[in-house]
């Protein structure tokens, strides 16, 4: 993830860490961004098809980003401490096939991973390449709960 485009290994799996979704955090996110009854209270959720309070899908996605950025930063810090050059990562133009597969209920713990699936050169920006990844999150029962296909610009090795 801190590697330059040329050094990124297709198939590499990176563990991003785990996160437990607490009731008050689920509600706080939903009040701000996704005020549907099944995200706002246990009582409200009990009257819906979900049956229990569950996190907004955008909350699940935002926690992916939180863990991804934290992992990136710790790897950058380690590399800098050893005086290893770190590739810059550019903005993402978007994603595909985002799936909310299982509801994320209050108290659930998700484990997020990133698997590199491919690389393509950028024609418009010769100093950058595009790295494609499958991002996934598994719940405490080991079931796939969330996934999407991400693309991000990664710096090429300076020539």
């Amino acid at each position: 993830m801190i590697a330059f485009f040329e050094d990124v290994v297709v198939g590499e799996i990176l563990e991003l860490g785990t996160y437990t979704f607490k009731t008050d955090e689920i509600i706080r996110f939903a009040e701000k961004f996704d005020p549907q009854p099944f995200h706002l209270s246990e009582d409200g959720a009990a009257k819906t098809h979900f049956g229990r309070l569950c996190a907004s899908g955008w909350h699940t996605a935002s926690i992916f980003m939180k863990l991804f950025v934290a992992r990136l930063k710790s790897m950058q810090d380690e590399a800098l401490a050893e005086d290893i050059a770190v590739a810059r990562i550019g903005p993402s133009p978007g994603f595909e096939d985002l799936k909310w597969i299982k509801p994320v209920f209050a108290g659930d713990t998700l484990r997020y991973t990133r698997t590199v699936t491919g690389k393509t050169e950028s024609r418009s920006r010769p100093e950058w390449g595009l790295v494609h990844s499958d991002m996934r999150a598994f719940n405490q029962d080991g079931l796939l709960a969330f996934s999407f296909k991400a693309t991000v610009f990664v710096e090429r090795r300076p020539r």
Partner: protein
Amino acid sequence: MISLSELPSNMLREAQAQVLITPAVSPTANLQIKQPRYMTDRTYFEDLAPDQEFDLGAVDVSKDDIIEFASEFDPQSFHMSEEAGKASILGGLAASGWHTASLIMRLLATNLFNKSTGRGSPGVSRLKWKHPVFPGDTLSATAKILEMKDLRSKPQLGMVFIRVRATNQDDVEVIEWDNPVLFERREPAR
């Protein structure tokens, strides 16, 4: 005896229509069948059609909002400080893409899903962050129905494919995504 599924569909509809007109033995039993799950002023699957477009309203984005969201979920420097934003490809302090998506989700939830029988979504088939969102921007969003499908496994629900778009105050598109959403039906699909 002939089973219902062997009847031609027009005959079946006619038969079912007759059942509905016929006075029920127990009026309350009939009421229970007809009673919708939610209030009747909600929008059901049957009220929707391809090409319908919904105005979802607008939201203002402040510098504090951008930094607050980024601090919690996406603490990359260009989402946290003006200087780092200017030095980046974004050209200035800009909102996390997940923040932009979440802000538009609020408009969707408030102005469409909570006024309808929306039952959540299994995902987003594609999303594009097209232009950075800067402090002071006002984002206006719409949702357009692309396609609708019956669900064989869940005849009480239908799938509605929507395209969500948001533009800033200069009418520049900042985000677009395609999203299947489940809606309850008044009557199960036949």
